[in-house]
Structure formats: C-alpha cells, structure tokens
C-alpha cells in the first residue's frame, strides 16, 4: 500500500467510494443476521422479559458513540500535528455519525430505563450525564466547524476541541465504577467471562460489527461530499 499516495484528497476520493460500497453491503447483511439472532434466536430474559431486546442496539450504539469520538479525535490530532488536509476532512466526516450513535444510545437507554429502573432519565447520574456531554461535544465540534468559513481554519479550531474533549471518554467508560449510578457495570470485558447467554452475546457482537460497518460507510460517503465541496476532487 502506498499510504502517502492515499493521504491526498484527490486520490482518496475513489477509494472512499469503494470502501463505502463494501462496508454498506456488509452492514446490511450483518444487521439482518444480528436482528434475526436478536429477535428469534436469543431467549426471553428471565428478569426483564422482552424489554432486554433493546440491548442489541443500545450497547453497540454506545460503543460506537465512544469509539467514533476517539477515531475523530485521532484524525484531528494528526491534522493538527502534520497539517495534512485529509485528516481534518475525516474528522469532520465522522462527527455527525458519532452524534447519531450518541443520540441513539441515549434514546434507547431512556426507553430501557423506564421498564427496568422506573424512569426514563435521571439528572445527575454520572453515566447518563457523561454520555450527554459526549453528545454536546459532537454538537460543539460541528457547530464550531460550521461557524468558521475557511475550511482549514475550521479543521484546526474544531480539531482542538475534539482533542481536548477526549478526556470525557474514560469518564464515560469508568463512570459505572467511580460513582454510584443506576447504570449497570460492563456486561462484556476482556478480563472476565461475559455475564450473559451466548446467543445474546453473539447477537450483540454481530450488531456491533454491523454498526461499525455502517459508520465507516457513512463517514466515507460524507468525506467524498466534503472533498468535492472543497473542490479537491477535480483531478479524479
């Protein structure tokens, strides 16, 4: 692979289209498999009944919301350090999809909280608050980027915000350990056996990969729009 060849927007433009197509196909197929497992294979939960089936979108969406932020901040950091044009475009292309998954995590969390905790929302709960702050960080990034007319300056200013905001990610992740919260601890971790049935875990992981593929496809479609709008696609 000639990495630096692809670091230029013109040469990346057609590659982004190919990646978007394949990841889009993979996302659709994986979602069909994941939802089939989630609704027809995974058994009813002994304590929560059918309400737990929200897990198949809630947990993957929450993972994506944090993961996409880290990826966005990494691109922003590369752009700030090396002043490469494509990096800022990538960060800007990821932000709306990250915000989308953050909102989905909050929305499905609220709808899951009502039947299990007895409430849609609790102001001041550390897990809920830190995830809400994540949504505001995405919105802040997008608003700041949109407010500055020169795209390179917008990339740098919003990129700085993205890099600083990354401190919120470990706060979200560890909030269930550091403070008292209604939210349960991690159900899946690398250091211990998963605390759920195998079919439930499989459905959840398949949906996570599906959301991953979708995010890549959406970011690639958006970065193509950005490249074209900035007039960098002319030579392709």
């Amino acid at each position: 692979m000639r990495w630096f060849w692809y670091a230029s927007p013109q040469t990346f433009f057609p590659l982004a289209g190919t990646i978007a197509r394949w990841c889009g196909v993979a996302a659709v197929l994986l979602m069909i498999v994941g939802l089939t497992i989630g609704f027809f294979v995974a058994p009813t939960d002994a304590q929560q009944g059918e309400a737990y089936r929200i897990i198949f979108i809630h947990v993957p969406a929450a993972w994506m919301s944090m993961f996409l932020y880290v990826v966005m901040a990494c691109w922003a950091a590369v752009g700030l350090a090396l002043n490469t044009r494509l990096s800022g475009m990538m960060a800007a292309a990821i932000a709306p999809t990250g915000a989308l998954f953050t909102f989905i995590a909050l929305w499905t969390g609220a709808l899951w909280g009502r039947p299990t905790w007895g409430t849609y929302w609790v102001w001041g709960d550390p897990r809920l608050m830190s995830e809400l702050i994540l949504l505001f960080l995405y919105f802040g990034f997008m608003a700041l980027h949109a407010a500055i007319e020169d795209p390179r300056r917008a990339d740098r200013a919003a990129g700085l915000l993205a890099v600083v905001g990354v401190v919120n990610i470990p706060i979200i992740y560890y909030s269930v350990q550091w403070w008292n919260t209604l939210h349960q601890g991690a159900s899946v971790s690398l250091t211990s056996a998963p605390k759920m049935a195998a079919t439930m875990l499989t459905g959840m992981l398949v949906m996570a990969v599906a959301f991953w593929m979708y995010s890549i496809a959406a970011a690639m479609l958006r970065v193509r729009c950005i490249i074209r709008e900035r007039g960098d696609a002319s030579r392709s």
Partner: protein
Amino acid sequence: MSEFFAMGGYAWYVWGSYGVTFFLILMELILLIRRGKQGEKQA
C-alpha cells in the same frame, strides 16, 4: 404474530428504540446521498 409485536407488554420500549434508530439511520443516508448528488451537479 401479534404476540411477537406485543413484546410481552414492552412494545413501546422495544419498537420505540428500534423504530427511532432505523429511522435516523435512514435519514442520515438520504441526506448523505442528496448532498452527494448536489455536489455532483455543481462539480
């Protein structure tokens, strides 16, 4: 079939989650494709 859609009494919570999720994903795709077509025209 109706038992499936009833979700053991949790229909609003389960379908409310899935409905909004897939609605938003679809909206994002539509907006992206529209934005792409607009760019194509101007280019």
